């Protein structure tokens, strides 16, 4: 009995998988005009059968011919297209994400017309009016996000109702990728005064001055947002990838942003994330070294736009939970700017 059930379950899974693959291969649905056309075709066929009027059979044949040609041409429109997708790694909530598609028509004879490109889960559509055989063209879609987070881009759907607008035919293309949606950084915040004893050392050079980066510590791989002035060219040439110099920072100048993740996910929690992001953005703009501790996530002190991106990346990912661990920064509690869901703003 158990083996039978297991077999049935296996068969069900196999069927579901086959159906999923089939649907990914091609999907066909009616447009409103197509639905009317199909009903009309049935009606003409019914009338032909009932009356024996041969001209109605002729009309029926022509209507079926339209459906056949429509199916064939729509197939030709979406097949043989090789798509590359380009988009910025991250985008801020409320800003537009422009996804650019580079599409090559690999068919030797037939052009592709009126094809729409739709990302699964995103509202924006790109439109390809015409791609000649063997040619490449680009098109783009615009999308915007209302919530921070990680948006995986996996399935791109090529859809067309060419040539007659009767049926919508879709084909899925697997293109992996993800968009990081950062929280807003434009929320107005007031930077709290540094606690006593955390003032910079007297005589420390200002940003941009000699020795501002601190003492040289080591080399490390490139991270997005790093200052190109810190590239260690000799090592980069040897390893054939960018290698960066890393410097000791003055811990006393660092602004530690501590985000408390303990609590239910709510609008207030999102506000707290945005406040943390705004604090980081302000610190980056003012040229300060800053760091983030959010639950177990930890971004070590650094400065510049690269550091801001790292902080925003973490903030895009954080989740609020009642039993989340408390943030444990490697500095005294008084040196932290604590951001909590309840106290945000």
């Amino acid at each position, binding site marked *: 009995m158990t083996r039978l059930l297991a077999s049935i379950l296996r068969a069900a899974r196999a069927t579901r998988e086959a159906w999923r693959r089939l649907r990914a291969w091609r999907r066909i649905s009616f447009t409103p005009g197509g639905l009317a056309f199909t009903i009309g075709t049935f009606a003409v066929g019914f009338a032909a059968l009932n009356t024996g009027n*041969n001209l109605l059979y002729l009309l029926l*044949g022509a209507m079926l011919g339209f459906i056949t040609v429509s199916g064939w041409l729509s197939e030709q429109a979406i097949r043989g297209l090789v798509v590359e997708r380009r988009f910025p790694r991250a985008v801020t909530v409320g800003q537009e994400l422009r996804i650019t598609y580079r599409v090559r028509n690999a068919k*030797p004879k037939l052009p592709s017309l009126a094809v729409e490109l739709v990302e699964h889960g995103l509202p924006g559509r790109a439109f390809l009016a015409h791609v000649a055989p063997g040619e490449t063209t680009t098109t783009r879609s615009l999308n915007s996000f209302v919530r921070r987070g990680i948006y995986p881009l996996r399935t791109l759907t090529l859809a067309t109702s060419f040539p007659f607008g009767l049926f919508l035919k879709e084909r899925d293309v697997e293109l992996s990728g993800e968009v990081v949606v950062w929280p807003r950084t434009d929320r107005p915040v007031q930077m709290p005064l540094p606690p006593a004893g955390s003032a910079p050392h007297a005589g420390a050079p200002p940003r941009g001055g000699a020795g501002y980066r601190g003492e040289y510590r080591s080399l490390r791989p490139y991270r997005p947002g790093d200052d190109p002035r810190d590239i260690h060219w000799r090592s980069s040439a040897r390893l054939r990838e960018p290698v960066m110099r890393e410097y000791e920072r003055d811990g006393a100048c660092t602004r530690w942003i501590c985000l408390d993740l303990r609590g239910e996910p709510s609008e207030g929690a999102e506000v707290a994330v945005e406040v943390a992001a705004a604090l980081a953005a302000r610190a980056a703009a003012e040229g300060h070294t800053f760091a983030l501790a959010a639950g177990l996530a930890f971004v070590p002190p650094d400065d510049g736009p690269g550091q801001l991106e790292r902080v925003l990346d973490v903030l895009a990912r954080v989740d609020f939970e009642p039993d989340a661990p408390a943030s444990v920064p490697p500095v005294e509690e008084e040196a932290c700017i604590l951001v909590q869901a309840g106290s945000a703003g």
Partner: protein
Amino acid sequence: MNLRLLHRRLAVLMALAGLIAFAGGAGFEPVSAVLAAVALLTALFWHPDRILSVRLERVWLPLAAVLVVRAAIHVLVIRDDVVIPVVDLLLLLMGAEALRSLDAPNDVRLYALSFALLLASTAYRPGILFLLAFVAYVVLSTLALMVGHLRRKAERHAVREIPLGRNLLLTTGGLAGVILLVAAVVFVTFPRVSRGWAGRGETMATSIAGFSDEVSIGEHGSRIYGNPQIVLRVEFPQGPPDDLLDLHWRGRSYDHFDGTRWTRSRGLPPSSGPTRWYRERWPGPWIEQKIFAAPLDVRVLFGIHPIVGIEPQNGVQPLLDNAGDFVYWGSGAPAYTAYSRAGPPAPDSLRAAEGGYAPPFRYFLQLPDHLDLRIPALADSLTAGLTNDYDKAAAVQRYLRGFRYTLELPATAREATLPWFLFERRAGHCEYFSTAMVVLLRAAGVEARNVNGFLGGEWSEFGNYLAVTQNQAHSWVEVWFPGFGWVTFDPTPGGAAGGEHLESWFWPGRILFDAIQHRWNKWVLDYNVESQVGIFRSWSGLLRPRQQSGVEDRKGRRGPEATVWGGALLALMLLGGLWWVRRGGRGAPPATRLYLRLRETCERAGVRVSPGLTPLALVERLKERHAGAARSAERVVDLYLRARFGGRELGESELREMNAALGATRRMLKARA
């Protein structure tokens, strides 16, 4: 031309095609059809702006309301045919939609209205014009639907221009051919389960000079003018008989003569010979006749005498009346297969015929009151000493064949009588001859009756059928022989069959057009389950090895085979086209093909092109002969090298450029040669 304008023009042309299709079936109602045609033609070249478009709508709406009321009156008050008022309304709406501004999103309405018109025309039995309009409609709607779709998408995505090259439009037009092919396949193979469609609104033809429901000899004053309208198209599945010009297409018989006119007696008792006699005692072979008749003003089914069976093909219901004539129920032009015996029994058999069943004498020995006494006397003199009916009939027939046939009518009423024909004029048309023979035979005591129908016909080589025209209407005689039934005698001398039209300049064209029309009627309008079975049988027959039948193929027997081979060729061409489209990258790349053509061109122009000659060396060699050609060839080679060794595919524009450079090289080398 922008997409909007192109799309509107295509939609308007669709509407025009629908209008022509309707005209091909129901004919034109002059006012509405002409107005609609004018509106549609105007819409091809002129469109109002938005403001004028709104103003025009204020005109169309009241007119449409009037037409709706008119249609309602037709349905509710007059209880008349509602199709024409509805079609008028359709035409008005179509004109109104066509004459709207280009911004109006009314393309779907135009499609729907033109399709409704096409649909309405199928309710009739349209002629070949419908086919032409239908093909045009499919081509235009393929283009219009595609351009309309692109237009909508472009507007939605704010795309200014979609490149619609001529090639794309031609390809799309070509796809209409595929749609028509699918339509043909569905039409041929879709199982027919119901009886044929008789069509509506079929108007009965009026006989000008031809077959009618009476035979009269009283006309006088002028000449009988022929009417070359084709009324019967007859196919012989077993091959045409040799004596085509002597075939008598029997229609109706008449038993009562009042001195000038033949009529059918009311309450005539069954007077036909039993079918068994015709089946068993008539010795000739069977003749199968597939007859496609035009609608006449008398619902009669024609065939070679004696008809022993009729199979209807398009929904008509044949009925054998008491006189032994076939009439039918059901509207429209009848199509049927008649089975007859070829040729009468031998004279000796007829001479020996006696006893058995005979029809009531009083009907078939009836003579008009006040019959001229010279007529019985003539009958007696002609049949004196003859002991059997056959010899008597043959004697009278022989006597009358000595008269002269003419279509000139007698000058006065007095000269239009039977005695004048027999004793004074001795000339006349067929009705005089048949009337005279029946009266003489009856006066001699032989049962006889007058019959009319058509004589002979014209064989159409193009259509493999016999075309019988109105002016081949004819009148002859049937004589009763016990044990054999009614036997045909024709006293009219040679030259009776009206053949003047055969010499007219338009007749070959007419017969060709008629053959097309006949095929349309036979293979489209009257296509039925028998036709389907016939086609499938001929197809399956092709797959079996041919047996030696010993029977020579006769005219008209190669049709289905030609169709099958034609279909196979077409399918092969389609497969070839599909292979060509799909072949694509597997063959030589386009740039390589063009370069190879360049080498061929140079070789033909006398340049020595060895197999190992490199492209650049080819250009150098060409420079020695023709600097101009070498310049354009250099461009071809440059693009070829880019594609071949540069690791990238050439785009469409570069291929075009390469093609143009190759053409220029070719022209210059040819000019030099």
